[in-house]
């Protein structure tokens, strides 16, 4: 009875320390965490592989775990071969999970295909990037990044390099079409309002103010002011106009001449 209690205590202590490890940015080969995947329950991490994870963009994502929608999120995965045999890093798998139930996939991103051979005592850096969709704005999601790799004998391994809840924020730094058009609409509305007010005020002032004498047009005066008409145009007018009548009539007139 007592022994079992002690065993339980030690196991709990172990778990607590491991749980504290999650906060750390770097994740190394610890098996229990990878048993997250339902399809790869039997596949774990290799003890000869060391993995690291680091966000490049946005720069503060490593600390605050916040992304903006519509902006690229880029991260690096470091793979270290500590063993004696070659490893081949096949691909990385990135997905958004429901934050309270990580078995529920919200979105699976395209695999990052690498197929890179890592010789013993060598390291390789792999990169991946994605955009968080607008529909995730303003809510937390679980981001899970798994790396799949093989050793020289063809044994498959999976390492979980990132498994935390991240906050997705709405990007309001750029120009939003909605507010932009709203602004244009209000400007147009105010200009229209000013025009209408001007019309109304001028009507009022016309009614009350001194009314101008109404000018009544009485046709053009017979006097023609020749001053503004260029001289050559006036001369042209004085010239005899061409013979009236249709060309046919003119022809007959010529014949009679």
């Amino acid at each position, binding site marked *: 009875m007592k022994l079992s209690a002690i065993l339980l*205590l030690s196991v709990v*202590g*172990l778990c607590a320390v491991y749980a504290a490890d999650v906060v750390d940015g*770097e994740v*190394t080969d610890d098996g229990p965490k990878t048993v997250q995947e339902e399809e790869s329950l039997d596949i774990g991490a290799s003890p000869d592989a060391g993995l690291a994870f680091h966000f490049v963009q946005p720069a503060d994502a490593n600390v605050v775990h916040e992304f903006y929608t519509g902006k690229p999120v880029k991260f690096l995965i470091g793979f270290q071969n500590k063993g004696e045999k070659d490893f081949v890093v096949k691909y990385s798998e990135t997905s958004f999970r429901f934050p309270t139930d990580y078995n529920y996939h919200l979105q699976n991103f395209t695999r990052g295909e690498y197929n890179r051979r890592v010789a013993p005592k*060598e390291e390789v*850096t792999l990169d991946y990037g994605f955009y968080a969709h607008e529909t995730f704005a303003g809510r937390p999601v679980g981001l899970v990044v798994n790396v799949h790799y093989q050793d020289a004998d063809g044994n498959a391994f999976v390492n979980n390099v990132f498994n935390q809840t991240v906050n997705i924020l709405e990007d309001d730094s750029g120009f939003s079409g909605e507010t932009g058009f709203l602004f244009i609409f209000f400007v147009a509305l105010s200009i229209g309002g000013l025009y209408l007010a001007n019309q109304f005020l001028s009507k009022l002032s016309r009614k009350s103010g001194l009314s101008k004498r109404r000018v009544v047009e009485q046709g053009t*005066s017979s006097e023609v002011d020749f001053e*503004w008409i260029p001289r050559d145009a006036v001369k042209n007018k004085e010239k005899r106009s061409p013979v009236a009548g249709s060309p046919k009539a003119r022809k007959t007139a010529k014949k009679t001449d």
Partner: protein
Amino acid sequence: MKFSLFALLAVAVTCADVGTQTKDAFVLAHKQPLSTYAVENMDFVLEYGIYNVGDKPAQKVTLDDRHSFPTNSFEIVKGLLHVHFEKIPAGGNVTHSVVIRPRAYGFFNYTAAQVTYYTDNENLHVTLTNTPGEGYIYRQKEYDRRFAPKYTYFLVFFALIAPTTLGSYVLFEQSKARFPNKPVKKTT
């Protein structure tokens, strides 16, 4: 009984220690082109980032990318393809950029750069960056067709529309000259 309890606790703590021990320097290096298009005889900007995600500083960090850009097909305009950083502290990062100029057009495979560093002054680590992959280096002509300012096109266009615009302007000027502006006399 008490002894066994302590022993078990000690075992548990040491086991856990393997997982949470302070890690050596772990350097991640990435390489990415900053220019959208690679064009022959035009500048192409590359950026290298070196991140130390370990808990100890990385010593004698060297970045070498000379083999990916052979000088017979690339001209180095600015920057060095082989750089050395004495120390990158834990959690620190370095960015390095190089401007190169491709000499020929065609497909080109951008391979990984090599980064070497020491942990504790004796353990040499060799890291390869990510590979940006195969990219196309555009011909200057193709690039100009898409992006160059097309001054000759505009000149030809102006020459084409000159008869309709300049011609009508000249006609307007002529008729305007026929009607000199005189002070208007008030009639009635």
